[in-house]
């Protein structure tokens, strides 16, 4: 079985955002959102001894994805080839997975009201195409392939050239997007964009954020209805019912 992965060679990446726009265009991502995006680390150090690099953010298709368990409908699942998929027919747009992702790789699409994220361009892969970001990358810095295949570029980059995952001691869930570059640059990426702790919604949060507003709204609607009926009666008088008897 394949184990798909992506490697960004940050010695080559120039942060040009071609990948971002190609992805937006491929997937009709609403303006202002992104399935992949490039961030600059900014300049670190003191003039003239400074460094900087680029971070290409996207879904990491983790070995132990933090987004699958919180999904109440099972819309988010991991395929056998490692790709974390979203079944849009099942997604209810609750956003639990968005909170859970340590890499902030998900967003709720304001048009469909469903979650959206990178799926390594599964639709293109099935047609024998490269993912849109890889195909367009001006710096020839993005590589996609199968980590189970020792002949693949990504295999060589990961197992022979030392491409690294963005993991910390606290958050290590096996991301399958790797970064190849000088140690100081990958360290800078990790320091600037460390994975955050997954925000799993606790019972209390579910109460505060979802149940309580719903119940309050229901109670409010009940009182409002009563009030309307009361004033309606007050002004238009009580209906005189004909006595059928």
């Amino acid at each position, binding site marked *: 079985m394949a184990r798909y992965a992506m490697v960004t*060679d940050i*010695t*080559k*990446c*120039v*942060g*040009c*955002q*071609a990948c*971002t*726009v*190609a992805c*937006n*265009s*491929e*997937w*009709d991502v609403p*303006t*202002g959102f992104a399935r992949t995006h490039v961030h600059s680390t*900014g*300049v*670190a*150090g*003191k*003039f*003239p001894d*400074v*460094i*900087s*690099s680029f971070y290409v953010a996207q879904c990491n298709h983790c070995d132990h994805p933090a987004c699958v368990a919180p999904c109440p*409908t*099972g*819309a988010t*699942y991991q395929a056998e080839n490692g790709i974390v998929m979203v*079944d*849009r*027919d*099942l997604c209810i747009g609750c956003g639990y997975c968005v909170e859970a992702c340590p890499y902030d790789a998900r967003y709720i*699409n304001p*048009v*469909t009201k*469903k979650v*959206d994220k990178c799926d390594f361009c599964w*639709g293109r892969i099935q*047609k024998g195409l490269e993912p849109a970001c890889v*195909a*367009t*990358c*001006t*710096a*020839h*810095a993005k590589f996609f392939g199968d980590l189970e295949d020792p002949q693949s570029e990504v295999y060589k980059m990961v197992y022979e050239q030392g491409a690294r995952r963005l993991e910390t001691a606290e958050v290590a869930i096996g991301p399958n997007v790797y970064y190849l570059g000088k140690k100081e640059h990958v360290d800078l990426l990790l320091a600037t964009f460390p994975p955050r702790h997954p925000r799993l919604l606790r019972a209390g949060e579910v109460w505060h954020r979802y149940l309580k507003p719903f119940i309050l709204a229901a109670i409010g609607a009940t009182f409002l209805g009563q009030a309307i009926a009361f004033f309606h009666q007050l002004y238009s008088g009580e209906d005189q019912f004909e006595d059928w008897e």
Partner: protein
Amino acid sequence: MGPKFSRREFFRRSSAAGAVGATVAATASAEVHPPGWRGTTRVETIATNCEMCFWRCGVRAEVAHGKVLKLEGNPDHPLTKGRLCARGNSGPKLLYDPDRLKYPMLRVGARGEGKFKRISWDQALDFLADRLTQLKQKYGPEGVAFFPHGVASTFFLTLMRAYGTHNIAEPAFAQCRGPREVGYALTFGQGLGSPEPVDLAESKMIVLIGTHIGENVFTSQITAFADGLSRGAKLIVVDPRFSTAAAKADWWLPIRPGTDIALLLAWMHVLIGEDLYDKEYISKYAQGFTELAAHVKEFTPEWAETITELPAAKIRATARAMAAAKPAVALHPGRHTTWYGDDTQRARAMAIVTALLGSWGRKGGIFLPTEIKTGSFALPAFPQPKRPRADGAGTRFPLASEEQGVTNGLVDATVSGEPYPIKAWIVYGQNVLESIPQRSRTLEAIDKLDLMVVVDVLPMEQTYYADLVLPEATYLERYDMPQIAHSAKQPYIAVRQPSVEPLYESKPGWWIAQQMAQRLGLEAYFPWKTPREHLETLVKPLGVNIDKLLTRGAVTFPGRPYIEDRLPEDGPLFPTQSGKIELYSPLLKQLGFDPLPRYTPVDEPPVGYFRLIYGRAPVHSFARSQNNAWLDALMDENTAWINEDAARDLRLTNGQKIVLENQDGVRSLPIRVSVTQGIRRDCLYMVHGFGHESQRLHLAYHRGASDTELMTRVKVDPIMGGTGMRVNFVRVLKSA
């Protein structure tokens, strides 16, 4: 044994059971995430080339139901091989920009007021033909000036030359690569052309002086640069700013602005003084070495250190590193090179270093163009203008290109009426208020005009001043002159053909030019009916199957990029007067200029001021793309980069809005500060192209600040007329 249901499958089955809500949701998601739409919808792909900038990468437009769904890179394109930058990918947002110019318009209000009335194409073209005929009678055809840009303007060029004017100038020369072309032609006998023939992918040492590859994105150049680096090329970046390229460099030299020639002279000093230059190459191909050696003897790295503020040891180390990689040294000649008014001499110095390293015509250095001979129509000769050019090309600026002209020379002539009055401007494919510095002077010139015509796609600020605005179809809706790239390693011809019909009442440039020619009695200059006929004639001698060309988008021919590949038909290796590389330039001597480059100090910023420097962002093209929704989402304003220590002294915080005031009291729109350790204390950097003044650009209007607006001064290169623009100084005001 019952079937095993996962939670997911359970939900799938229950939703498939027929809930109305699920059907609605599924329809919506099909629109937004067309799952497999490539398979289900019949998508036609059309090969063409991009015009989001002038690099013209290969594009495949995916079209269905008369609409461009997506632009993909064209893998058959020899240069860009299927890759497209952010701008290239954003083409559909230009095509479907709701702010586009939609129909011809005639000005009814005052110039600059922006009041127009809609007219028909017939009215517009008749009006223009009448006015051009009157102007010719009153002022002569030379009284009409033409400001084109790029290969798409070919048909208008023919029209204007046929009309009888030679007052034609595009900013590509005097605001961009003119000094480079002249400096290299003086040395090697030929300029570089576009795309730049720099062998980055094969290089062992890449040297960038001010060139900010990475922020300056030309797809194939980025690919070659990055591939070169990943194959182990070393990188030297000379830039007062810590650019994207500098962040990848083995040596970053944060030079004091305006002192590049001193650094180059010191490099020559080391290469010659330490016997590190390519002796065989120089003795075989160059003349003037003795004079050069004597000239640079005094320019030690220690001397250069006092001028450039770069440590002498670093200057020496970089010179030695270059020599160790010779001849595979790609010293990039740059592109926008009009900086300080001594730019031709700086280009000369770069060319000389290239020669000393033996890199011209060598693998990993600068490769050589290969001419491909296209067909042409037998046109009547263009009328010979009776008066000399008004822009000074060939006279006031002896080495300016007469083909590309001097835009600022035309502005000067329009303002002064000397040597004769210029009374009409026709502008095509550029925005004169952004492309030419000294905007108030440009406006002063426009004020003197009887007629200003703008052919454009978007309502740029210049349209506010036009008498007649003609809406052109975008590059995705029109045929253009194909790109014939002699300067690619493997030369090629690439077509531009319409992917969809022009929207609104916009029309392709070729149609407008042809219609005008008919009205002016100049049909003989357009002896073809359809674009296909035009293309057939062009490619006839190449033996290319035209259907194959139109399907693939481009056809490649064998190149002879290195000296050892050259054939007699390629002509002399160094077409200078002497037939050799002219390290010492007899021509410059004869014209009264320094025959060897010399460092002359530039003006320093007054106390409290920064030098204003500017450059590009990877997601925008000049001042053209700020209204593109996808690109706007990535970068909707520019920022002012200020060194952290300088910012602390001024009590500025990151993200704070400021106003910049230049040495002449001109103030910018508000702009945010980017506080950074990645720039010298003495300069302030911003990306060019923001601060649009046209209210009809709904996304771009008043976003960020315009560097052009702050360029009230220029230093003109006396050799070729280029406007040095890095001679302006700004100070920070905390509020307007």
